[in-house]
């Protein structure tokens, strides 16, 4: 994907306590075929940060994701890729 998850608007919340990071995350569709890869990437990337010992990801569907959740940068990245947003 040409756009990061934050600009795509699928990260709903993130908090850290004593090295444990909790992430609220959604997908653009319930049938997202890349969901496992995305979860793996988020976990692996956060564990690379100093002081992070564990990552807990909570997949949420409320509120449902829409294109309106994208940032301007995300919109531009997808448009540059030829996707209508």
């Amino acid at each position, binding site marked *: 994907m040409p756009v990061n998850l934050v600009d795509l608007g699928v990260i709903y919340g993130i908090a850290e306590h004593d090295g444990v990071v909790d992430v609220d995350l959604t997908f653009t569709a319930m*049938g997202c*075929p*890349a*969901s*496992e890869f995305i979860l793996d990437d988020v976990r692996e990337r956060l564990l690379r940060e100093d002081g992070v010992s564990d990552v807990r990801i909570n997949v949420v569907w409320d509120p449902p994701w829409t294109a309106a959740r994208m940032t301007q940068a995300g919109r531009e990245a997808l448009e540059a*890729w*030829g996707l209508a947003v």
Partner: protein
Amino acid sequence: MPTAAEFEKTIKSGELIESRSEMTPEYLRELKHTLVVSGDTELISAPAYYLAAQKAPSINAFMTGIAIIQDELAHAHIAYHILEELGEDQEKLIFSRDPKSFRYPYAFDVPLDSWTELVVANGMYDQAGFCLLGDIHEKCSYGPWKRGLNKVMAEENFHLRNGRTWMKRISQAGGSAKDELQRAVDWMFPLSVEWFGLPDDLKMHSTQLEYRLKGLTNDQLRQWWLSTVVPYCEQIGVKVPAHQETQEGKDVWVLDYPFPCEFDAEEKRWDFSKPITWDDVLVRWRARGPRNAEMVAMFQEEFHKFRKTHKNGN
């Protein structure tokens, strides 16, 4: 239509060809042939992958498998659509051709029977497709195809990721899972190596290269494929029959078995003690493999059944 000299000048200048009026009949014929191979390869990968996708170990994995099949069908559609613009009948190409006249790599005719074999196909066959299409994407002299491949390449990356992630996961699981992975690699690796066709020293002339329909020779493409697949397999602890060595000051990938050699498609087994000639390989390819007729029938039969009932007004 341009004269032969005008056309040669355009090709040599590196300019893109955008319409039929800019082509010679020979170029049009070669372009169509290359597109048919590409379309047929993408199309047939759908029933080939579908057999194995049904063995997915989770709903999520099944969704990924199905999404890959959906991509492949869309990629086939791009190639057939361009063929239609070039005067071919898409419907006839897909639904009325004899199974044996489809032009896709022999590898897809050998059944993928498990999720493990599907992910090895994603890691190896899709890597072969990635090299072939990546080269066309970069070098192709026909503008509409070159541009269509922008998106195809992005999506093929996702297939490779599925293949590589799962191959690594299965290898790390060890035990019988890893044994099954190794067995899949043992028969699928040499089939992928064969995918790129005749070695350069047997293929004196390539019209595709001359017309800039592609940029790399068969051996160059094969080396590219080896340079991605061999290191990855070694990294995840899977054995492959190839290694790198320095020849005349250049690093090259070398196969550890006679190429080509005998393959038993029913047993999915190579016999490295039996070298064969490329003429023998071509005989096997032309005869097609175990699943050819069944896979083509998978989409042709229903099409004709539907057409028939439709005509009867049912």
